[in-house]
């Protein structure tokens, strides 16, 4: 795995200014998306409209998988509950699909995913289901809704599009993966020096005074929650105390951990989601930065955004077809190049130096347990990491 990184370093360097930051800030893809797309005939978005911009993307082969052109047309009105929504990026994709089909109009309401999961179950139980599709940034909320039988089974047409069985069930299909990662400064560490275990980072002396983290950050709480599930309260407390002995530097966000801490050499490595280093590359292509992944522990956690069809949907067939569109070549290319997600279908590669999602070794964990964040906060307060 580490070898892979040294090879991909060059690919990374070629990634000058990945997707521009406007794409990250969620540029609402109003027609023509500011000139990077080549309009095509009529106003129908083309692959260029779905893709992010930047050198990295221009070197990409055409995505494989099922093109939108090969899917049945979306037609009618669709209501979507959008859990999380990645800073408006998902609504951009919905806009593109709305533009693609004249007879299709999807509208979405965005709220935090766990809240929305609860709203959906309440609505299902009081027989007032509002939406056709639940599209959420984390699998835990999808599982919660499915476990409360508020979803319908997806068609095999939809579920079979997802390449990796770990990220699909009968009730929901993963559409964009993300992983915890260890970004590091290449002037301070080589790929082979990054351990494959998060315990080593907390205990080995060579990592003292060189770790950056963002303990107030939601993604970090998810990671600690995963650790609580995997090794229990006491084991997690021990790891946190070991970490404190390493004297880590605190940052306000995981993006800052990478962009300020690691890129400027304030710290040598950090614990973040995998896409923050990619965001830094979007701005500074030659940053002394790379990323590694641990194996089979909480720091290798993989979560996925996904979608399901709700029981009570006005038009279940349309909803199912919409999920298939999220798994189309174009939509997957969109999620891979604009959000740096791990694509979920065969034929679309993750951006730059990222391994494919099959190459990762996440722990075996029920992602629904990640919603149990309150004890994590309590633990972080007890240990003295949060006040």
């Amino acid at each position, binding site marked *: 795995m580490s070898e892979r990184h040294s090879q991909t370093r060059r690919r990374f360097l070629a990634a000058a200014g990945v997707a521009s930051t406007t794409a990250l800030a969620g540029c609402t893809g109003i027609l023509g998306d500011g000139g990077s797309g080549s309009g095509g005939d009529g106003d129908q978005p083309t692959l260029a409209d779905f893709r992010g911009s930047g050198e990295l993307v221009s070197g990409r082969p055409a995505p494989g998988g099922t093109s939108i052109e090969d899917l049945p047309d979306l037609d009618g009105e669709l209501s979507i509950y959008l859990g999380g929504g990645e800073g408006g990026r998902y609504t951009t994709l919905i806009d593109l699909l709305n533009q693609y089909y004249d007879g299709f109009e999807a509208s979405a309401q965005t709220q935090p995913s766990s809240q929305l999961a609860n709203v959906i179950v*309440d609505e299902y139980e009081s027989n007032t289901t509002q939406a056709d599709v639940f599209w959420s940034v984390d699998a835990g909320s999808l599982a919660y809704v499915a476990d409360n039988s508020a979803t319908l089974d997806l068609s095999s047409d939809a579920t079979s599009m997802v390449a990796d069985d770990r990220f699909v069930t009968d009730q929901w299909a993963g559409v964009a993966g993300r992983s915890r990662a260890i970004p590091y400064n290449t002037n301070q560490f080589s790929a082979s020096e990054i351990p494959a275990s998060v315990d080593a980072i907390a205990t080995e002396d060579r990592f003292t005074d060189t770790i950056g983290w963002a303990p107030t950050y939601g993604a970090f709480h998810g990671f600690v929650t995963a650790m609580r599930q995997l090794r229990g309260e006491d084991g997690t407390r021990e790891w946190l105390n070991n970490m404190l002995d390493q004297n880590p530097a605190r940052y306000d966000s995981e993006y800052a951990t990478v962009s300020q801490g690691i890129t400027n050499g304030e710290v040598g490595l950090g614990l973040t989601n995998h896409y923050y280093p990619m965001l830094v590359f979007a701005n500074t292509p030659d940053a002394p930065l790379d990323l590694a992944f641990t194996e089979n522990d909480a720091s290798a956690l993989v979560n996925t955004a996904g979608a399901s069809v709700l029981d009570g949907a006005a038009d279940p067939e349309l909803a199912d077809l919409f999920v298939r569109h999220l798994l189309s070549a174009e939509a997957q290319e969109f999620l891979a190049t604009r959000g740096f997600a791990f694509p979920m279908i065969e034929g679309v590669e993750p951006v730059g130096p990222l391994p494919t999602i099959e190459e990762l070794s996440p722990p075996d964990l029920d992602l629904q347990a990640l919603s149990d964040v309150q004890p994590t906060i309590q633990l972080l307060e007890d240990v003295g990491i949060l006040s």
Partner: protein
Amino acid sequence: MAARERLARLRDAVDGDDEPGLSLAVLAGAVAAFVSLPLVGLLVRASNYGLGHLVGLLTETGSLDVLVNSFVLVVWVTLGCVLVGVPLAVLTVQTDLPGRRAWTVVAALPLVVPSYIGAFTFVSAFGPQGDLADALAPLGVERIPAIYGLHGTALVLILFTYPYVFLTTRAALLSFDGTLVEAARTLNHSRWEAFERVTVPQILPGVTAGALLAALYALSDFGTPSIMRYEVFTQQIYVAQRSLGVPEGYPALLSLQLLAVVAVVLALESRIGSDANASYVSRGSRQPGQITLGAWKWPALAFCAGIAVLSLGVPLGVLAWWFEQAGAAVFEFEPAVAWNSLKVAVAAAVAASLLALPVAGYAARSTSLFSTLADRLTYVGYAVPGVVVGLALLYLSTEFAQSLYKTVPLLVFAYVVRFLPQAVGTVRSSVLQVDPKLTEAARTLGRSPFGAFRKVTLPLIAPGVAAGAALVFLTTMKELPATLMLSPIGFETLVSYIWLVRGAGSYGAAAIPALVLVGVSALSMVVILAQERYNG
């Protein structure tokens, strides 16, 4: 007292002399019942859980922490508003502060910034990763004090609600009988002693009235504690209603607790209000001699300027900065969003005005208990925090009217419940100014009751009705909690759009909608001031 007299009194209680027609009473009663529906729904829902269950919840959940947090916040905000509002009022009314007129306007202006927009701008400016933190970073400032939690919530609420205290104190000072101070001075009191023994008791009721308004606002405000992540009733009701693993009935329990606390504040307010009049408006026309500030002029000016910078400079500056920074992104939001805001606000304004007519007309013309009751019931919206109205309507619709759940009509109903008091208030004061003899004349000339109303009363009260409608329209435009809780999927308004892009961290896109809402608030102030002059 003779039995006959007592009987007569009883009859008067039910229908006073000169009672308006029965139909008006029925209409007014119907409106009152209509807008009390949500509250009834909430109580029904709560009673379904049973007292035992709710008491159990009290002890096993963190609801007591929430109560303590809310209490602490209210105390902080109330004290803070007094400490800011009273000195400003004294300075602008009783001293020779340079530019008093201008400072008076500036001190009242923060009322036009919706508090949640204030909170956004403060988080944007002073939060971690905020603009200020970025600006200070090169100077070696590592950490600025945390804006989240109690401190930030209290700071923002004080800055945007102190004008209540400022205005009521100012009114008390202006109607203040200056001869009393002079009397005290002739009795050999020092200036300070005179202030302490004469001025303070005279303006205290005014200060208290304003402080209670500020307390009520701090209790009911949903946006600021939500943005500042401080766990008080409003914030917790919203979160509990949509969180996993929350015990059944918890949001309802929190709502009941909040309503109980609000009731206490309102009871205090009505007691102050009733015995305040004696001193609050003692019609002494003479102002006491001006206090000469001398060398204190500079700290006084610095105080006024400091408050102005924080409460006006920061929010407007940050909004302008967003606007500047966003470039083309400021125009990202779709016109449909503004259009939706307009549509529901117009609908709410029209509905509230129509419903206000019978209630206000009946209350203004009748002295019966029933009319007082009907009038008071429509004030439900004034007392019940928006987040509770939202929750109550969610309950009501899921249980009794599923076809209305999360529809635009239900949303408009929520606005009407919340803002009907504004319409009733303005309409009633204008009905009171119409001489009943005019309508009687029209009746003797053969008009039907309705005809007389249309030909005589309506043209006379039209300005009051219009003002009430305008107020409802403007407050609906910026309403936050019910909008978030009840909007249908895909129904985006200026408010929900601001909330959304703020969550995504793209402040630039929020610049124009936020500025629009500040403008809308400013307009509603203008309407209120114009009304006061009209009723003067």
